[in-house]
C-alpha cells in the first residue's frame, strides 16, 4: 500500500518554500496531531508561512498528515523504510529532512496515537482519605474506620474532542470492601506477571 498518491508527494514540495527547518518540523508535528477535521484551519494558518495559495496549503497539509500517520500506522522505525516511501525523483534534501524529522518524532507520535485511540473512559486521578466515624444520631460512641475514595474519570477522548468531560465518582469503602478490592487487584497483578513472563 503506497503511503501517498502521486499528486500528494508533489504537494509536499511546497515545503521547499518554508522559512526554516524548524518551521517544517513544527508543521509536521501539527499535521500529525491534527484530526482530519482540523486540517482545514491548520492549512489556513500555515498558508502565509509557506507562501502558498489556499489550495496548495490545503493539499500540502493533507499530504503531510497522511504521510506521518502512515509511518505511525505501519510502525516504521528505520530510515531505509521511510526513505523508501518517497518516489525516485523526489527532491533529495527535502526527502532527507522529512525522514529525519519523522524518525525523531515517530516514538512520541506512536504514544500520542495510543493515548487517543478509542477506549472506555479512562481513570485520570484518584484521591482518598481515611475517616473514623465516632458517633451518629443513633449510635453514641463508635470508632469505625472508613475510606473515602474519589476517582476522576475522563470520558472517551475521541468523542469529546478538545474538551473532554471528567466526572468524579466518590465511593465509601469499609475495611471489608477494601479487602475485597485488594483481593481483586492482587489477582490482576498476578495475571500481569504471568503475561509479562510469556
Amino acid at each position: 500500500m503506497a503511503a501517498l498518491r502521486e499528486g500528494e508527494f508533489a504537494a509536499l514540495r511546497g515545503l521547499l518554500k518554508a522559512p526554516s527547518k524548524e518551521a517544517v518540523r513544527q508543521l509536521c508535528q501539527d499535521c500529525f496531531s491534527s484530526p482530519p477535521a482540523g486540517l482545514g484551519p491548520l492549512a489556513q494558518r500555515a498558508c502565509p508561512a509557506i507562501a502558498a495559495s489556499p489550495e496548495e496549503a490545503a493539499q500540502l497539509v493533507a499530504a503531510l498528515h497522511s504521510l506521518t500517520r502512515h509511518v505511525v500506522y505501519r510502525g516504521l522505525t528505520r530510515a531505509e523504510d521511510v526513505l523508501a516511501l518517497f518516489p525516485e525523483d523526489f527532491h533529495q534534501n527535502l526527502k532527507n529532512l522529512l525522514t529525519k524529522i519523522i524518525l525523531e518524532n515517530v516514538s512520541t507520535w506512536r504514544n500520542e496515537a495510543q493515548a487517543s485511540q478509542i477506549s472506555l473512559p479512562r481513570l485520570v486521578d484518584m484521591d482518598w482519605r481515611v475517616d473514623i466515624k465516632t458517633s451518629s444520631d443513633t449510635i453514641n460512641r463508635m470508632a469505625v474506620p472508613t475510606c473515602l475514595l474519589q476517582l476522576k474519570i475522563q470520558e472517551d477522548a475521541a468523542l469529546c474532542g478538545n474538551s473532554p468531560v471528567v466526572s468524579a465518582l466518590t465511593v465509601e469503602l469499609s475495611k471489608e470492601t477494601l479487602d475485597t478490592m485488594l483481593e481483586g487487584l492482587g489477582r490482576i497483578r498476578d495475571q500481569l506477571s504471568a503475561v509479562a513472563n510469556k
Partner: protein
Amino acid sequence: AADKISLIPQDFFAELCEQIIQHLNHKIPGVNTVELCRRLQTSGIEISVGELAKITNAVSFLFSTAARNNLSTEDLVTTLGSAGSTLPKHAVQVIRHVWNEQSKSVSVSEDVGNMATVGQFVDMKWKLGVAVSSDTCRSLKYPYVTVTLNVADPSGQITDKTFEMTIPQFKNFFRQFKEMAAVLETV
C-alpha cells in the same frame, strides 16, 4: 410514578419489592435498578432507568415509613387507598403480599453504613486486555486493565462505572489501595 407502575408486570414488581425489602433489611447493599430496567426493556416494556428509580424510591419510602410506624398489612393498604394514589390493583396486591410476609423482619435501626452521603462500594469486576491493532497503529502490544465498580448510591440503587487504566496507572492504583489498607489497620 403511579401511572408508570401500571407498566410493570406483576412478577417484575414483586421482584422489585423483594429487593427493596432485602435492602431495608441490610441483606443486600442496594437495589439493582439498572439491571431490572434492562430486563424490563428486553421484554418490551418502555420504561427508563430514571422512572424505575423514582418508583423504587417511592416504594422504599412506603415500606420504611410503614416499618417505622409499625403498620399492619391492613393499615398499609388503607393508607395507600386513602392517600389518593391510583395504584393499579396488581401492585396493591403485591405490596399487601410482600408486607404480610416480610414486615416483621424490616428493622429500621440505622446501621453505621447508612450514614454516608456518598456511594457505598459493592463490588469490582476486572479484565486484563492487550490491544493488538487499531486504526492508528497496525501492530500494537498495548496492555490495559478494564475495571467496573458497582456502587450503591445513598438511595440504595446500584449503578456501575467502567473505566480503563494503563499498566503504570494500575500499579499506582494498587499501591494506593495498599496504603489505604495499611492506614485502616493502624487507626
